[in-house]
């Protein structure tokens, strides 16, 4: 199925809850890499296949421009785990912004992944977020305005 929504990787939650991976959501290092509309994301894949530059997330499908939104993605800043709302916990970050002269074509969504923890899987995916369709920018700024409900949320 083509890319149609935003999802958190099942194996990411299992690996964090099971202490299989040392990914730390509020103090780790994460990046957002852009992808075009030719991929078919699946949140039920293995940890290995959720990683950057593996399977659906190969660089062949990545949308990037050196110095603007470089291959491998732009680092997330202002990470926080928000528990201020009853029955909800969500992971948030500052909006992610390209350089001011970006040429990006058909950016359809983003893979958010951890880029420091190397074992058991390097660059393991956390979630992917759909932009609602392909978006392009020519010599401009491309900004991901993260949802008020965060990059991903758990409703309890």
């Amino acid at each position, binding site marked *: 199925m083509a890319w149609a929504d935003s999802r958190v990787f099942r194996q990411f939650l299992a690996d964090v809850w099971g202490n299989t991976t040392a990914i730390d959501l509020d103090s780790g290092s994460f990046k957002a890499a852009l992808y075009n509309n030719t991929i078919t994301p699946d949140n039920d894949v293995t940890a290995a296949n959720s990683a950057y530059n593996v399977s659906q997330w190969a660089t062949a499908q990545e949308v990037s421009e050196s110095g603007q939104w470089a291959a491998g993605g732009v680092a997330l800043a202002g990470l926080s785990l928000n528990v201020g709302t009853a029955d909800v916990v969500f992971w948030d970050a500052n909006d992610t912004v390209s350089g001011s002269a970006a040429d990006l*074509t058909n950016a359809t969504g983003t893979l958010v992944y951890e880029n420091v923890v190397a074992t058991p899987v390097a660059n393991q995916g956390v979630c992917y977020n759909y932009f609602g369709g392909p978006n*392009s920018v*020519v010599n401009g700024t491309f900004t*991901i*305005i*993260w949802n008020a409900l965060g990059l*991903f949320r758990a409703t309890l």
Partner: protein
Amino acid sequence: MADDKARKRLAEMRKARVDGMRAQTRRQAALDLLDAEGEVTTATLDARMQTVWVPPDEATLDNLMAQKCQASVAHEERQLRHAQDAQARCADRTQKLRDRVQDAEEAEARAADEVAARQAALDLAIALADAADGDADAAPAGESVQVSPDAANATGG
């Protein structure tokens, strides 16, 4: 017929007379080389040679040598000018080739710029066409794009 024979005889007699005169001249020349005793001597030979060749004096030799050297200098000067002309022609041709290389490099750069501009225009046209189809959002060149993805939900029961 008799006249022909007479004329032929007369021609033969004239030829014999001329031959006799030439022989007499050669005989006299030989006698001039002999002294009173009829011997060929060094003095008579030297005297004879002096009439044929007079050794040049030192000034004449110096003059001849100078002329020879001047001719040699002139020859070498001509050769030098020829070499200089060839060098100038080669330099001119080298410069023309350099100019052509520079022209080609400038044309290549202009073509690369044109390709980049065309590619950017194509990308923009594709993005605008996608936007017209309602499949994508594309901003005109120089404008910014903002996307607002939904949060990924992990829902409990």
